């Protein structure tokens, strides 16, 4: 179950010393006599990306709000490290059009920032040209980018991103997930993310927590995507979206060895060796660096794939 030797997080995990930012123990939220979520246990360490997945109404946003203290747990405990600086991108944010709010002003909503910090964050999310635009004139995707930039510019210890790329175009999506990963790597902040994009979840996450009113299953993306609970929850979607259910770009040779798409041959077919997403046909010559290759393995297998950022196999 525990796969602790993945290259990217191995030093942290093995040391087990990374500062815990938030930990929830048996936490639950009850409204009108109904438990929205219950028995939630998990923690987020500095430098860790935890992703909540689950069907609508599973309590993902509720859990995230509970973790950051917007909602108080009705049972169990939620412990946050002292003076925890949070950057929050909520799932929904309706700004009344009567408030004249420019992107620049939105950036300093909860705290002052230097102009350079604002510009840098907007550049990172790809909308530096919109700094003077009124928020209500932004498209849905542009608005999400502005919200993400705002959270980033705060230089938080913990970023909480509730469906951060909703409404963002396809090309932008992977770039933003890339950015999120880059920020994690460069600042070492913890990230709690809610996402429906299982591709991205599996690519850029250390821990996946599958929620459906309670924690169904958890673990590394590899573990979760193979668990029966996960398959039950996501059913047909899991087949089309999950890491392991897509084109197989390797061939089993008659002698039992396996030939991969890149021509390399290994002795065994590891469950996810050489598997690629539907985007295997992507033009890798262009500069996208997103880790949408889901080799969950940490062993040095013989793919001549060069190291990329966010690419998790060693």
């Amino acid at each position, binding site marked *: 179950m525990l796969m602790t030797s993945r290259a990217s997080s191995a030093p942290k995990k093995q040391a087990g010393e990374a500062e815990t930012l938030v930990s929830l123990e048996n936490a639950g939220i009850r409204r009108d006599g109904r438990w929205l979520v219950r028995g939630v246990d998990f923690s987020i360490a500095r430098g860790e990306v935890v992703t909540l997945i689950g069907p609508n109404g599973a309590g993902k946003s509720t859990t995230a709000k509970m973790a950051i*203290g917007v909602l108080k747990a009705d049972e169990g405990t939620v412990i946050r490290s002292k003076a925890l*600086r949070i950057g929050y991108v909520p799932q929904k944010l309706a700004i009344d059009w009567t408030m004249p*709010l420019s992107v620049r002003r939105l950036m300093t*909503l909860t705290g002052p920032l230097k102009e350079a910090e604002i510009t840098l964050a907007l550049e990172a999310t790809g909308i530096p040209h919109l700094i003077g635009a009124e928020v209500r*004139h932004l498209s849905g995707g542009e608005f999400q980018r502005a919200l993400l930039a705002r959270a980033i510019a705060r230089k938080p210890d913990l970023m909480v991103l509730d469906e951060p790329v909703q409404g963002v175009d396809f090309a932008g999506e992977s770039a933003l997930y890339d950015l999120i990963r880059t920020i994690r790597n460069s600042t070492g902040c913890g990230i709690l993310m809610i996402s429906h994009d299982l591709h991205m979840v599996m690519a850029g996450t250390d821990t996946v927590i599958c929620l459906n009113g309670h924690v169904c299953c958890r673990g590394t993306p590899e573990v979760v995507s193979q668990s029966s609970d996960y398959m039950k929850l996501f059913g047909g979607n899991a087949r089309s979206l999950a890491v392991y259910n897509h084109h197989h770009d390797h061939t089993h040779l008659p002698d039992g060895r396996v030939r991969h798409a890149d021509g390399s041959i290994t002795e065994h077919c590891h469950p996810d060796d050489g598997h690629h997403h539907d985007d295997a046909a992507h033009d890798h010559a262009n500069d996208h660096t997103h880790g949408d290759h889901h080799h969950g393995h940490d062993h040095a297998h013989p793919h001549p794939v060069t190291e990329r950022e966010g690419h998790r196999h060693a």
Partner: protein
Amino acid sequence: MLDDFFIRALVAGVGVALTAGPLGCFVVWRRMAYFGDTMAHSALLGVALSLFFEVNLLLSVFGVSVLVSAVLLLLQRRQSLSADALLGILSHSALAIGLVLVAFMTWVRIDLIAFLFGDILAVTPSDIALIWGGGAVVVAAIIWLWRPLVASTVSEDVAEAEGMNPARTKLFFMLLMALVIAIAMKIVGIMLITSLLIIPAATARRFSASPEWMAVFASLIGAAAVVGGLFGSLTYDTPSGPTIVVAALLLFVVSLIPAFGRTTRERPANKGVQG
């Protein structure tokens, strides 16, 4: 022409308008127009109670406004009725109870019309001191609370998550509203207080590039409405409170003329299509 009472009315009215501007912006942004109305209507109950128990009028009005808004928030939390319906119930019952109580007190003679529609021409120097003193407190508090107020108006969740305390901010906001209602009551009257909060803010929207500028413009536009209204009331011999509101409305209508708006140029093509 400019008698003493008229100068006093001008000074008092401008003071109220300057105070109401920034607060009115929050009433507009937070969609609390009806809420403000409810608090204002409950002021009459405060007047009645102040006469009945012979306590300070200002304190009584302030207290009752705070109480009514607290009851409202508690009822909203239970979510048994929509906020809209609750407001309707509280707003009109507070007004009705106030009127009934006043009618019961046959031993006091009060000028009901003055309370309902204002009596700015009867402003005394001590009223002016109260308005400018109270107004200074309100404006100082708003400046002090500005960032959390704006942040929790945009999103309470974000404000809370990022280390602010929106519940406390909201409480302060209620107290400021109650205070403004208490000091503005004499100027435009219980029925028209909300208009002095909302109309200048709505007018300022078209000219403002940021929340900060909108608050400043709302104050100035409100002051202009007071000055215009008072001169109008003097010229046409009309009641001063309603004339001030009519003046504010005229400014609002003028602001709707496209040539004056600063946002005309950057109006979006169609957000629905893009988003």
